[in-house]
């Protein structure tokens, strides 16, 4: 693979920490356990670190001081015995004797002070031929003795001085050490400064061991404390979480629901049984309707043939053929309606929506029913101030609703004008069909959507409706998420208003067309047939034409 592709995972991996950090922050916000654990660990680690560092420092100090004390004691002893030896020595200004004395002194010092690193430096700068040379033995170097230390030792005859130094090792690094200095007076040639260097390596090793041990113990402690806090937190938070869950389920009613389950199960099974029974019934109606269709087709074909040839029959047979033909048609409509109703009951109806202009649809339906209106001497007027822009609906079903409403209005309109109104607002489109016929009592108007219900059984029937039309219309309206409402008053006529929501929306609080026409109880007779019919909130009144 080429270099760029190889480098991608690397940069990708680099950026990985960001989501990880976000995740961590998220956990911090949401998990009490995580927050407590993290806090406990951080505080414990801080405390342990503080304690151990203090401890390490104390141990270091103690080790160092006791060593220095020990060194001081050894040096003091060595110096005391050296001074005794020097005071009693007889050299008589002989350089060789002085040299021997120096050698003997250093040898005894080495034995008594417990270090080979000893330096002897003459205090006085006056040249002397007999004074022994400055000596540095056992690895001590002149630069190890700082001018400050020398000054202090030179100034004070009786006092011992010490200083921490770094001793060079073979590999060039330094190990800790201490150097102690004091004067001793040589006969004839004056005072010499003696320096004893001690190596603190074993103390340093002890200290290192202590430090490593402390680190290890600290780490183990932190881990242990973390584990312990986690366990303790679990034992504390699990019951809390469980209690919280329980209270949540209690709040949601689940617990209550569960305790009612036994009861609900039996109710559910009964409902299921009923639903199955209802489903069986619906399927039965559907099957019957379908099964009836084949023989009905035969009857229909036969009756149509007979009806077409009725001119060749005698009057009675011709009338019989005519009646047969009409009733077969009625039967067919009834069957179709029944099937449609059974579909609603089974919930198996699907809308085939397409954008449709309700105003144009109303115009079409009025045109298609013009002939029927003419037969009844009825003038159908369309008033459409709005509702032209297309709205999603199943035009086949809406057309059926409008045809049904208009058919009813023509049938019950007593030959008086019928006003079809179409209007819209931002939530819905609506269509009203108003007739000025006999109208119904409020008790009757409440039942108009009932199946097979007829307002007045004695009333003359000319259209031959099935008594299912309005139920189907209501079903269609509801299927669209709309409403079909009715206003009726005896002597003032009836007003049906179909309201359909715009695309996927909900119906507003008010329909674009009021169900109650609010025409002050004025019947059409008083308005007069030739006078314009006042429709509120309408400015123009274009006549509906074929």
């Amino acid at each position, binding site marked *: 693979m080429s270099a760029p592709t190889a480098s991608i995972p690397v940069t990708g991996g680099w950026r990985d920490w960001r989501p990880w950090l976000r995740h961590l922050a998220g956990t911090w916000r949401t998990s009490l356990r995580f927050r407590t654990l993290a806090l406990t660990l951080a505080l414990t680690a801080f405390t342990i670190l503080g304690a151990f560092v203090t401890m390490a420092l104390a141990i270091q100090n103690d080790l160092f001081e006791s060593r220095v004390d020990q060194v001081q004691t050894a040096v003091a002893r060595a110096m005391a015995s050296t001074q005794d030896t020097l005071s009693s020595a007889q050299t008589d200004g002989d350089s060789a004797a002085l040299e021997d004395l120096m050698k003997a002194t250093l040898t005894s010092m080495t034995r008594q002070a417990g270090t080979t690193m000893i330096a002897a430096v003459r205090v006085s700068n006056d040249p002397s031929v007999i004074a022994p040379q400055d000596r540095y033995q056992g690895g001590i170097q002149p630069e190890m003795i700082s001018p400050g230390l020398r000054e202090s030792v030179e100034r004070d005859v009786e006092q011992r001085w010490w200083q921490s130094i770094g001793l060079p090792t073979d590999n060039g690094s330094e190990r800790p050490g201490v150097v102690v200095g004091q004067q001793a007076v040589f006969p004839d040639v004056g005072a010499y400064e003696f320096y004893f260097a001690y190596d603190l390596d074993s103390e340093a090793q002890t200290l290192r061991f202590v430090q490593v041990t402390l680190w290890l113990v600290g780490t183990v402690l932190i881990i242990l404390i973390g584990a312990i806090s986690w366990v303790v937190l679990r034992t504390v938070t699990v019951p809390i979480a469980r209690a919280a869950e329980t209270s949540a389920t209690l709040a949601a009613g689940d617990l209550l629901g569960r305790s009612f389950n036994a009861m609900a199960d039996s109710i559910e099974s009964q409902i299921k049984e009923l639903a199955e029974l209802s489903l069986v019934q619906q399927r039965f109606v559907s099957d019957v309707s*379908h*099964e009836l*269709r*084949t*023989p*009905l*087709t*035969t*009857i*229909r*074909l*036969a009756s*149509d*043939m007979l009806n*077409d040839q009725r001119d060749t029959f005698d009057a009675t047979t011709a009338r019989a053929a005519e009646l047969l033909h009409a009733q077969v048609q009625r039967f*067919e409509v009834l069957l179709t309606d029944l099937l449609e109703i059974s579909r609603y009951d089974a919930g*198996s109806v*699907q809308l*085939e929506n397409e954008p449709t202009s309700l105003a144009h649809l109303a115009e079409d339906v009025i045109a298609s029913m013009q002939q029927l209106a003419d037969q009844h001497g009825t003038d159908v007027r369309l008033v459409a101030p709005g509702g032209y822009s297309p709205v999603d609906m199943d035009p*086949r079903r809406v057309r059926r609703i409008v045809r049904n409403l208009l058919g009813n209005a023509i049938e019950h309109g007593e030959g008086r004008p019928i006003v079809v109104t179409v209007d819209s607002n931002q939530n819905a489109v609506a269509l009203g069909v108003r007739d000025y016929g006999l109208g119904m009592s409020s008790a009757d108007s409440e039942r108009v959507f009932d199946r097979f219900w007829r307002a007045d059984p004695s009333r003359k029937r000319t259209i031959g409706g099935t008594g299912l039309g309005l139920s189907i219309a209501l079903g269609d309206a509801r299927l669209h998420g709309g409403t079909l409402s009715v206003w009726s008053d005896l002597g003032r006529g009836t007003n049906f208003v179909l309201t359909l929501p715009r695309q996927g929306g909900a119906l507003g609080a008010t329909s674009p067309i009021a169900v109650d026409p609010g025409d002050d109880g004025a019947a059409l007779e008083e308005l007069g047939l030739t006078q314009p019919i006042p429709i509120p909130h309408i400015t123009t009144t274009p006549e509906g034409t074929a």
Partner: protein
Amino acid sequence: MTSRILVVDDDTALAEMIGIVLRTEGFDPVFCGDGAAAVDAWRTERPDLVLLDLMLPGMDGIEICTRIRSESGVPIIMLTARTDTADVVRGLESGADDYIVKPFNPKELVARIRTRLRPGADAPSETLRVGDVVVDVAAHEVRRGSEAIALTPLEFELLVALASKPQQVFSREMLLEQVWGYHYKADTRLVNVHVQRLRAKVEVDPDNPKIVTTVRGVGYRAGAVV
């Protein structure tokens, strides 16, 4: 010449009644009451049109339709008691040209049959070009290069309708009137299903149609000549 019509229906009363209607109108009906025997009956009788009930014992109408379609483009009209979307669409997809819902009246039945039997209508007898396809109207033939494409008469008529007015966008209603002879609001699924079937045959890539193009929200149009 009288057209022979094969009526496949297990209901003898209805079959006989349909026979009476057809004879009155000057057709020559032959009958088959058993689904399993329907395809054989079609092979021996070689009818000009098949009236096919969807619900049959033996073999169902859709299966019969598929088998006949695999051998011939003979016009098939389904008779169905169910108007449910799924049933009708399944029937059309299996190759039926049209369908009639029971109960129907004699005029409707005869009108449907006559539309499907009418000869090449008033289409111009010339050679039309759509996309990379040549339509020889007189010879009833469609070719892409030297390769002949077999279409049913209905599919041919649909293609000719579109190709004869390449500038025009045809709404589904216009096609229903021109090709199926419906003069009132009818089922636009007829158009949808048959356009799909036509595309499956004439398009190089039916998912990216070049011969019968969709004009969104309006209908269909013949593709530009290449």
